Every structure is written in C-alpha cells, then in structure tokens.
C-alpha cells in the first residue's frame, strides 16, 4: 500500500473512508436515472447556471427524457454490471468535463473517484453544490456512498494511491498528462482509458453553400462558430482544417467567401479576442510561412485567419491553430485524404455531404483514424460514445451465462 499525506487531498464531496466500501451496480439503474433527473432540475433552477451555457448543456443532457432515450439502446444489458471503482482525472480547463465523465461512468454502474481541477471555476462550484444537496437526501444515499470528488495538487503518490484501488482509470487531458499518470500502476485486471490529444477537421461541399438561403447560411456559420471559437478552437473536436470537396474544377471562390464572411460576422459579434491571441496568431502565421507551402492568407481582420494550402499536405495533425485560425485545402475525391488519416484524428464535421459517404471512405480504405462523423455544429457534443469507445459497454462487464 502506498503511503500518502491525506491532508493534501481536499474531499469536495464524500470522504476517503468510503473508498473501501464502494460497490458497482447495474447500468442505467433507476436510482441513477432519478438522481440525474433531479440534478438536471436543480441545475436548471439555479440562478447562477444561467450565466454558463456549459452547465445548462450538462443539465439538459441529464434530463430524464434524454437518459431514458439513451437507455433504450442498451436494453439488452441485463447481464451487465459496472466494473467497480473508476478513477477519473479530468482536464484543467474544460470546467464541466468532470461532470460528464462522472455521469457516463455512473450510468455504466460504477462507483467513482473524480479528481477535479484545482483551479476555481464557478461551473464546478454550481454543479458540486447541486450534487451535495441531493446527496443529503436519503433516497440518494447509495449513490452518495459510492461517489468521491477530490482536489489535490499534482502528486504521483496520490495518483498511485487511487490507481491501486481502481478497476478502471479514465484520464482526460492530452498525451503528456496520460504518460505522467501512467507512471502510477493500476492492478493487472484494471482498464486504462486515455483521452489523448486529438485532431479534427471539416469537410464542406461548396455547392451546398451556393444553394443556402440567408437564414441557412447564418445557421451554418453559427454552428461552425460553436464548434470552434466557443472553445478558442482548442477542443480536441474543434476543426483546424477545412477541406473543400468539389466535384468540378471551378475554384468555388464565391461560395467560400460567402461562408467565411458569415463566420467572420458572427466571430466579430460574439468572440472575445484577447490581444495575446492576436499575437499568437501572427506568430503562427509567420512560422507557417517559413515551414509550409502556403498559397495565400486571408485576414479579414484578426478575428479570422484563412490559410490556403498550396496542395494536400503529407500530414495534417501539425496544422493546428487557435482562436479562429483555419487551414483550407481543395479536394475532388475523399480518397485523396486517405494518406492523411492517422490514429490522432478524431472528428470529421461535415456540411453538404452525407455521413455514409464519409463512413464508407473510412471503412473501405481500412483507415486507423476517425472516431466521429457529425454535422457541423455538433463537434463539441459529448456523448456515451466518445473517442471510439462505447463507454457503457467499456465501463461494465458481461456475465456470461448458459
């Protein structure tokens, strides 16, 4: 047993003595569905939530109708039970991510220890307070006993302390974090899931923009804004590259301009552009000018940088900008992208194409990357299937019977 300094661990919800009595449960059990429904109501009613769209999104995700709908896809899970104790390490600057990680694992039937960011976020306070209130009620005693939310400074010893006890470990936050956490061993039969650094891009057919009404165009631009600027274009599922798929030889300049003009208008209206980001973008642009063959750059203003690549590059995962910095490339056939698809690639968002076309492209080319194909606007929508894992099935075990 690793010895740790327990005073370094701040228990936000629950206490360390619970650790040895935690037990798994059946996926989608009724207590959990009721708890999530009450949590949803509490969050929607809380005045402070209104300032945080991410809290509201989480609250809506937890509401009874959504969970019931999701449970229908798992109706066959009668012989499943949660793996046991799941230890979560959640990212420092996506405030509500800890809540989703907790809820996914809870729905799979697990007890949970969740390390939440040390940095203070109001979103975290709001959600924790709502959970704390519900845990005072007798009907949620069982869930309360199986839940522990902790904050602690970076410490290999504490990571190891929780790791040796877990049946599964979930690490969010990128390659370097995952490698660091993996210095702490987990038991041989336990499962280690790392949500690593990912890369995402968009495929758009410009001819579909040509036929857009003004209203549809604004909707598209808003969706694109939400996928990107909303998280400084720095979420793993935010696109960095726009692939224009054109069936004819025309350069589609008018359609592209129409799209970017609409995006720029929304960014200018909604996005808070920090001066330091402006300098970051100029620095990246200068580096790109030196390192990559670039045809042209368009800076409508510092809100939007479009970097037109001279041709389809050898690799794309290093073409990554933030705060409204997009690479663009033209293709005629999806197959031209095949050499670019590596394991790091997570989400393709699309507009004007159908998802089967993209799915078949991945399957028929025997590719090792791409875990999500979703319409523009849904890039940040997290769900029970993430990074290629079906989290309910991954975080529960099957009891074979004959």
């Amino acid at each position, binding site marked *: 047993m690793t010895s740790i300094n327990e005073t370094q661990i701040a228990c936000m919800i629950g206490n360390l003595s619970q650790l040895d009595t935690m037990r798994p449960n059946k996926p989608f059990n009724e207590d959990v569905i009721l708890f999530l429904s009450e949590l949803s109501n509490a969050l929607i009613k809380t005045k402070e939530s209104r300032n945080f769209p991410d809290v509201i999104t989480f609250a809506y995700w937890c509401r009874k109708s959504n969970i019931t709908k999701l449970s229908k896809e798992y109706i066959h899970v009668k012989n499943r039970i949660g793996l046991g104790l799941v230890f979560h390490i959640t990212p*420092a600057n*996506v405030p509500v991510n800890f809540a989703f990680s907790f809820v996914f694992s809870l729905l799979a039937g697990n007890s949970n220890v969740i390390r939440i960011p040390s940095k203070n976020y109001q979103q975290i306070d709001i959600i924790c307070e709502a959970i704390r209130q519900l845990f005072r009620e007798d009907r949620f005693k069982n869930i309360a006993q199986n839940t522990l939310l902790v904050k602690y400074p970076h410490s290999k010893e504490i990571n190891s302390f929780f790791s040796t006890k877990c049946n599964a470990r979930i690490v969010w936050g990128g390659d370097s974090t995952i490698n660091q956490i993996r210095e702490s061993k987990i038991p041989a039969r336990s499962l280690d899931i790392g949500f690593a650094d990912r890369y995402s891009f968009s495929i758009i057919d410009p001819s579909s923009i040509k036929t857009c009404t003004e209203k549809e165009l604004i909707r598209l631009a808003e969706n694109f804004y939400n996928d990107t600027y909303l998280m400084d274009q*720095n*979420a793993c599922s935010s696109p960095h590259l726009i692939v224009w798929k054109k069936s004819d030889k025309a350069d589609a300049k008018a359609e592209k301009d129409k799209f970017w003009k609409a995006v720029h208008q929304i960014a200018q209206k909604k996005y808070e552009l920090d001066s330091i980001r402006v*300098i970051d973008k*100029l620095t990246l642009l200068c580096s790109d*000018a*030196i390192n990559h063959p670039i045809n042209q750059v368009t800076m409508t203003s510092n809100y939007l940088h479009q970097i037109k690549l001279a041709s389809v590059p050898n690799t794309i995962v290093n073409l990554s900008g933030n705060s409204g910095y997009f690479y663009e490339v033209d293709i005629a056939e999806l197959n031209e992208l095949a050499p670019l698809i590596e394991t790091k690639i997570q989400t393709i968002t699309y507009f004007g194409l159908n998802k089967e076309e993209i799915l078949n492209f991945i399957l028929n080319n025997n590719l090792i990357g791409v875990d999500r194909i979703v319409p523009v606007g849904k890039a940040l929508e997290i769900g029970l299937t993430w990074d290629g894992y079906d989290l309910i099935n991954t975080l529960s075990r099957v009891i074979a019977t004959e």
Partner: protein
Amino acid sequence: MLNFDVFFENSPFAFNQMQKESYFFPAIKTLHQSHLQNCPEFEKISSLIGNEDLRQVEDLPFIPVRLFKDFDLLSIDKSEIRKTMTSSGTSGGSPSKIYLNSETAQLQTKVLTKIVNSYIGTKRLPMLIIDSKSVLKDRNNFSARGAGILGFSMFGYDIHYALDDDMNIDIEQINEFLQKHEHEQILIFGFTFVVFENFIKKLKASNTKLKLNNSLLIHGGGWKKLAENAIDNSSFKALIKEWSGISRVFNYYGLVEQTGSIFMECENENLHASIYSDIIFRKPEDFSVCEIGQEGIVQLLSLLPHSYPGHSILTEDIGKLVGVDTCPCGRKGKYFKIFGRIKNAEIRGCSDTIQK
C-alpha cells in the same frame, strides 16, 4: 547599404515627424529590401503578409518578437556573427537569439551614444551600476541585462558596481565611491526591477539614506515586477528621491531585438522616439493604426538591425501615443507611454490536467 550621415549630423530629437519621415522612410525601406534579399525566412513571411506597395512607414510588415525564439533569423552569413544576444523576454520557453555582425554592433553603440549624450552631455561621468559584476561573465553571449550594462558603461569612468555577486547591496563600496567623487555629477545605471528590489528596498530595510543629490539615474527593462508591487513611475521616482536623494531619473524603453535605438523618457515622463527609430500603436482587432491617445499593441521600427530582420517588430507590450512634435520638453517627433505587457489570458480547450 544605408547612408547614415544625415542621422548622425543631427540631434536625435531635432526633426519634426514630417522631416523625420522624409529621411526615415526611404532608409527603412532600403533596409527592408535588403532583409528580403538576405534572409530567406523573412522573404517567405513578407511575401505572405507584406504589402506590394510600400508608401509609408505604416505599410511595412512587422514580425512578432516571439519569432526570434523559434527561428534563427539572420541576414548575414553565420561566419560574420560577432555577438549573440539572448533574452528570456516573453512568456518563458527558449530565449530570443539576436545575431550581430560588427556593423550592427557598431551602429548600436553609435546611436546609443547619440541618444544618451543628448541627455547627459558628452563628458564621461563617474559611474555606479546598480547590479552585480557577475552579470557580464560571458562576453560573447550577452543577456539583455549584460548588453545594457556594457552599452551604458561607455558613458562612465571609474565604474563601480553597487551589488556583490549575490546581489546584496555593498554600502561600504558605495560610500567610498561617493566620497571620492563628492563634488562631481555621478551617472547611475540599473535595471528597473534591480534598482527597486536590490537597491531602494534594501536601503529602506536598513534605514539608510544616501546623498546622491548630484546624480542622475537611467533605468530600463520593464515595469512588470514593480507593477506587481503597485509601484508606478511617479511613486518609483518618489521612493528613489527619498532613499537615495536622486532627483533626475530617466526611464528608457527598448527591446533586445532593437538594442541601441532606445526610447528615453523626458522631464515630463513621456518616452520619445529618436530619428533612428519609430513607434506605431496598433489595434488588436485588425492591426489598424490607433488614434492619438488610444491604447494599442506596440510596433517598433529601427534603422539599426542590419544583420537580422528586426527592423520592424511587433512587441507584446501595450502603450499609447501621447502626441507628435508637441511635448513641452522640446523634443520633436512622437512621444508616448508604455503600460507594460499584454496579459496572458488562459486558453480554453482540452489541455493538460497537470497542475503545478
């Protein structure tokens, strides 16, 4: 190469902005074109973000100072490098590397002399440096602080350092020095935060008041540490006066990327651009030029960087133009204020969970 005669025949603040630009613009345009020819990286950048048509100083492209950290930017053959200057400067990571050939190094010295002489006269003064001699250890690889000390040392004689190797104040040494030069004007030089942390604060802590009434202090290097202590220029001056007796205090603003063509503060606490340099404040949203009085990101231009493309750079500082040609001190050209570094706002996204 450039003909610098006109710049050395005149006082650094003699030209009004219109006169200045009639010399400055053709000179910097020539310099710009020579960097295009001699620095392939700069040529690539310029062909992507530059204007075809250069009609005024504002049309020149500018590169962010952080680029000198990520790339070795040279407009000369490596064999011509005489000195390398480094600066940890912005936001940590690898230092900026500035490569000087002898021509650029000489220009820096010459221009610094012209500017500083216009403040202190051409006579060398007994000099006290508020720093430790150990900063100068490696003479071929200068930190910005080392370069500053060495650059300003040429204005002094009988140079003494006020701090020992551990940056502790050496009161005995200072008193001995003061006795020796009792009736002379003394030049005191130091970096702003060193003067504050290791000199003024220590004098205060030991309740020692010096009588440097006949001296003048030149200091530079940024206000970040003082701002953390809520000390602004005026309160800094008051503290200096109280504990050391110095009443003539001049701040200067300059970056290691443009050593030599510094901007010096006048009696009215305005910083002034000399005829060797220029300053433009740009709006963050589209880099358009700010109005007088409007805060913006600082772009610096200098005629001195010949060995590297640092003649037009975008800093990470915020400031504003106060006026042009009309400062009551009589110096012509642009005068301005610098408010310090842009704050480093945290980016959102699925970044590392490691917290220190």
